[in-house]
């Protein structure tokens, strides 16, 4: 069996973002043909493509940093749960359309702040990719923001379900800001990420008339060390089945 070892610290940093994008892409792909309207089906599939595109480009950088010891595909399809470093937020299931929208918004605001700082990175390709992602993700953020306003200010039912989604997802936002030494090496100002994220979500809470859930100190093990929610294993089982069962499959 192939061993995928990521040892370069820059690659370790990038794979966290790459993994989060791939897993969110997979979650969005599950919505294809399951969204409430045809337009939404197309929108969510498009957002999923964006995530996969970003994830793929980042994985290429990761592979290159590891002297091409493995390909981006190996990295996605041949790592186990504990070898993945995505944030738990993106693993959360599509229980309800409100879950999809809340998850997307919280993610979009967070990665926007990350890519803003990477847009001036000395690695030219990463900087260029980040500049591109920033433009693309604006469309996604606009989309999830609009939906949150519509749901939050819609009916009693839509409000209740959106607030519920927020309350559930909120516990997975704390770990986003527990930056370690690796993060601090490649991000120029980690405090600004938390501050701007708070501004962004508070603006949404006001516009959508939703309540900001209380911050509670929880003991959830960090994604940076490969700890995940119960859902990642199931996602990987689904996502990796074919390449693992038929390792040389091509289409």
């Amino acid at each position, binding site marked *: 069996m192939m061993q995928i070892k990521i040892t370069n610290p820059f690659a370790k940093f990038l794979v966290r973002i790459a993994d989060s994008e791939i897993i969110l892409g997979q979650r969005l792909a599950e919505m294809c043909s399951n969204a409430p309207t045809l*337009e939404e089906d197309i929108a969510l599939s498009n957002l999923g493509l*964006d*995530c*996969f*595109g970003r994830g793929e480009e980042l994985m290429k950088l990761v592979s290159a940093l590891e002297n091409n010891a493995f390909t981006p595909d190996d990295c996605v399809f041949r790592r186990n749960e504990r070898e993945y470093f995505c944030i738990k937020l993106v693993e959360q299931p599509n229980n309800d359309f409100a879950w999809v929208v809340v998850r997307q918004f919280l993610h979009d605001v967070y990665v926007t702040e990350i890519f803003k700082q990477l847009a001036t990175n000395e690695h*030219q390709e990463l900087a*260029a990719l980040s500049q591109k992602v920033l433009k693309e993700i604006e469309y996604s953020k606009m989309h999830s923001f609009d939906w949150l306003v519509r749901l939050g200010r819609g009916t009693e039912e839509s409000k209740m379900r959106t607030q519920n989604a927020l309350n559930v997802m909120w516990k997975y936002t704390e770990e986003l800001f527990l930056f370690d030494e690796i993060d601090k090496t490649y991000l120029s100002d980690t405090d600004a990420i938390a501050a701007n994220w708070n501004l962004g979500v508070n603006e949404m809470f006001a516009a959508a008339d939703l309540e900001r859930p209380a911050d509670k100190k929880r003991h959830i093990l960090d994604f940076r060390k490969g700890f995940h929610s119960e859902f990642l294993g199931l996602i990987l089982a689904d996502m990796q089945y074919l390449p693992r069962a038929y390792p040389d499959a091509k289409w």
Partner: protein
Amino acid sequence: MVSTNLNEKEIWGWMTEVPDPEIPIINLVELGVIRAVNLKGNAVEIIITPTYTGCPAKQLFVDLISEKLVEKGINDFEVISRIHPVWTTDWLSEETKAKLLKDGISPPTVHNKKIICPHCKSYNTVLASQFGSTPCQSLYKCLECLEPFNYFKCL
């Protein structure tokens, strides 16, 4: 057999014969995807850039370019994708935008403002859905002729 008097200009010409797989009315040079053509002895190096990072046609660009080069008798080549400098819809020339409009796709405008209907040329148009048939397009509706149309998003 590779002709010995192969030059970069000729290869640029071949590249204009490669249509964009999703919007075949324009070619990859007009789209701004082909960034450089380098000749290293008899080896050809083509530098391309992706339009949208999630564009499903990314791999197809490489395949179509490779096919074209093989068709022209070139076997020693490499197609390299680079993100820097970042592709932008600003690279579409006025002629290319006119071609898009003629083909029924409203061309990108600054900040996605003043969007023209490709059917009746009215500016009285409204967004129907931010996301359309390809990652680079949104769906709009004309309030004059009531026809729906695709709009190439500004990036």
